[in-house]
């Protein structure tokens, strides 16, 4: 293990900050943490279970966390870097220039953290945020339930007020990585008599609490991070309720928006393993009279390419409009378009691969082809998870187009 690099000085001006940061990163980022993540390896999600992470990955996380660079814009007292916007941008640019992989990822950092910052009590912030920023605690989320589907608010998992603590009973579905998480944030029913959106609390629960168990969910594409998580008479201190005990729905909606904008980024890229879709098509299908030998597939590819470009441009336009303060309704289409397009993209890829894309495993199939096939199957869930396509269309009709219920 190499010795830790010296800290950069506090930034005098932006150029100096850039210079310092660049130098620090060049030292601090292990070579193996640069470039795309190789297949089979994953990003570091933090938490107590670091078994699947390399020594370099742990080191990279430790170093970045020490600088507060895992969450550069968070206040220093909560484990962040205390950087201003311009500095954070420079940090991102320098990380990108180095092709450094993110030192830390996960729902704690991406979803819970921002919400905690916004609505958590000072005690809650001080307890949880630094551990998120340092990657000491890995979070998972408990929203959906068996039988609830898109009607999230119909949830049944109950938290009964027992004076000093809540008693939690029920189960949560689609809890990603629940089997490896240290803590879970949950929507729970605190008042069964209130209208369904009004009786919901947002509870933070230690996964080591007695009475919690998980079981893994296998998808049509094979192994998945999803679990079902069961709560049987789980005792949770009342201090772990975020916001009001009946104000969970509002917090959940804030958090869902972070999730949707993350999902919308799907569908833009068309990289398949090494080569692009176009190269793959030319290789597998071949040209005839200068055009792809399969005329229908050719049109489907052209249409897909157009649609991908339209999606990417729309996402960029939403960003530009946000910056200009002229936000329209375009943002509401991104989750729908991104996920539907990703499904379409994999359908086209399957058509290109032909029978070579039909393998489940075995030596007769290229790893690229097997991976594409699994990804095709996995893509079927895109338009269901994070708000179904039907819900997205309802939202567009209601909120953007003002059509009544």
């Amino acid at each position, binding site marked *: 293990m190499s010795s830790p690099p010296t800290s950069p000085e506090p930034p005098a001006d932006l150029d100096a900050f850039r210079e310092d940061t660049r130098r620090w990163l060049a030292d601090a980022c292990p070579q193996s943490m640069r470039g795309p993540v190789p297949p089979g390896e994953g990003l570091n999600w933090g938490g107590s279970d670091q078994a699947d992470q390399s020594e370099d990955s742990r080191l990279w996380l430790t170093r970045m966390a020490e600088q507060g660079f895992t969450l550069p814009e968070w206040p220093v007292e909560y484990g962040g870097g205390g950087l201003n916007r311009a500095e954070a941008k420079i940090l991102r640019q320098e990380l990108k220039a180095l092709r450094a992989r993110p030192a830390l990822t996960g729902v704690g950092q991406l979803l819970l953290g921002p919400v905690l910052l916004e609505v958590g009590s000072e005690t809650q912030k001080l307890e949880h945020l630094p551990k998120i920023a340092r990657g000491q605690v890995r979070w998972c989320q408990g929203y959906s339930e068996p039988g609830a589907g898109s009607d999230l608010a119909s949830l049944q998992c109950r938290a009964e007020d027992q004076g000093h603590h809540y008693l939690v009973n029920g189960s949560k579905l689609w809890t990603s990585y629940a089997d490896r998480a240290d803590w879970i944030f949950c929507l729970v029913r605190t008042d069964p008599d209130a209208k369904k959106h009004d009786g919901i609390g947002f509870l933070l629960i230690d996964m080591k609490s007695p009475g919690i168990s998980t079981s893994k969910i296998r998808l049509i594409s094979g192994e998945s991070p999803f679990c079902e998580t069961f709560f049987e008479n789980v005792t949770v201190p009342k201090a772990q309720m975020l916001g009001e005990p009946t104000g969970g729905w509002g917090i959940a909606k804030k958090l869902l928006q972070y999730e949707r904008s993350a999902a919308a980024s799907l569908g833009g890229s068309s990289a398949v393993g090494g080569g692009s879709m176009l190269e793959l098509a030319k290789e*597998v299908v071949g040209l005839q009279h200068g055009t792809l030998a399969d005329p229908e597939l050719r049109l489907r590819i052209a249409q897909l390419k157009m649609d991908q470009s339209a999606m990417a441009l729309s996402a960029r336009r939403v960003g530009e409009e946000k910056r200009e303060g002229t936000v329209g309704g375009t943002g509401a289409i991104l989750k729908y378009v991104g996920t539907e397009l990703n499904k379409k993209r994999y359908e086209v890829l399957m058509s290109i691969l032909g*029978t*070579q894309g039909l393998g489940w495993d*075995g030596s007769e199939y290229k790893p690229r082809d097997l991976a594409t096939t699994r990804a095709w199957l996995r893509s*079927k869930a895109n338009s269901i998870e994070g708000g179904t396509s*039907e819900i997205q269309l309802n939202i567009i009709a209601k909120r953007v187009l003002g059509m009544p219920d």
Partner: protein
Amino acid sequence: MALVLTETQTEFRRSVRALLHANSPVSEHRRLRNEADPDGLSRKLWRQMATLGCLGLDTDPDDTGDSTGTESELGGMAELGLVLEQCGRQLAATPMISCILLSSRLLTELGTKRQRALLTEVATGDLLIATAYQEGSRHNPEHVDTVAQLLGDQLSLSGEKRFVIDGHIADWLLVSANIEGLSEPSLGILLVKADSPGVDLTRTTLIDGRNSATVRLNDVKLPRNAVLGDVSPPPHHATVLEEVLARAALAQAAEMMGIAAELFERTQEHLRTREQFGQKLASFQALKHRMAHWYIELELSRSVLMDANSGVDEGRDDWMSLAHHGKARLGRLCSLATAEAVQLHGGIGVTDESDIGLFLKRAKVAELTLGDSSFHTDAYARRLGI
């Protein structure tokens, strides 16, 4: 002509359905997959289907004898379609396409009496023959690099065939190859014992839990009369192969009809029972219209398949167009059906625990087997003269 079933056909369908229901529920398909069964299908079921006469439906009764139990009124694409549709509904893995529609048919069309003698054992379910026609990863039967070199009275067969359905358990193989050493090279179908020296079979497991094989042929020595029909040159083999593939594609489409219809009914049931936002899913108008669209496509497809099957059985001039239409349409129907079934089932639909995914996977294999919608639409357009 017949767009409704005869009484005999209805009765036959009932028998097939009862047999499959009892012996090959979807859970059986799941078991075969989970246990990575070496055959990937049930030979017992296959012999039961033989008893019902399913295996002799595409051959001349003279070749198969009475033992198959084939009734005189039955036999032809209409009945084969009924069998395949029921297989689709139950996800029953059988060698109907590989062994009956392809191999039995090729033997019947092209084989000598001696070669056709194999059909007796095929019809009882005791012998399996697979047809090795594909070389690339896309359906293109004209693309044949495999060569059978004629040297005196011997042939030497070399090449590589992919996606040989049920090739992993075949006793014999029918192999398309360019026969060289004749006055002019020509395509021929050769009958090859699967355990011949030089034949290398690699089993490949498909996403639907079934199996195909890659067949590598390295200087396989065969007598001259391994060529079907024992003639040289056999100029019409390419045409017969194209026709047999079109018939098999139509049978494949019938299986897809079963898949699409089953998915429809399961989704209908799901929408009827599942509640969301305080009402049954089936009461949401957007879903009603989508189900109605799906139903429309189901009904149109059924009409087309019935007519195409009749067209084949009556030997109508345009039967190849009808077959292309059938496979093209059913490919699109299955795309719609699987997409809607998964989406409307929601989260449960993408778990391995649900059967929906099994239908999705089987449908994709069926879609790409024997030519996808794109291939058959192109072929159809060519026959329109455009």
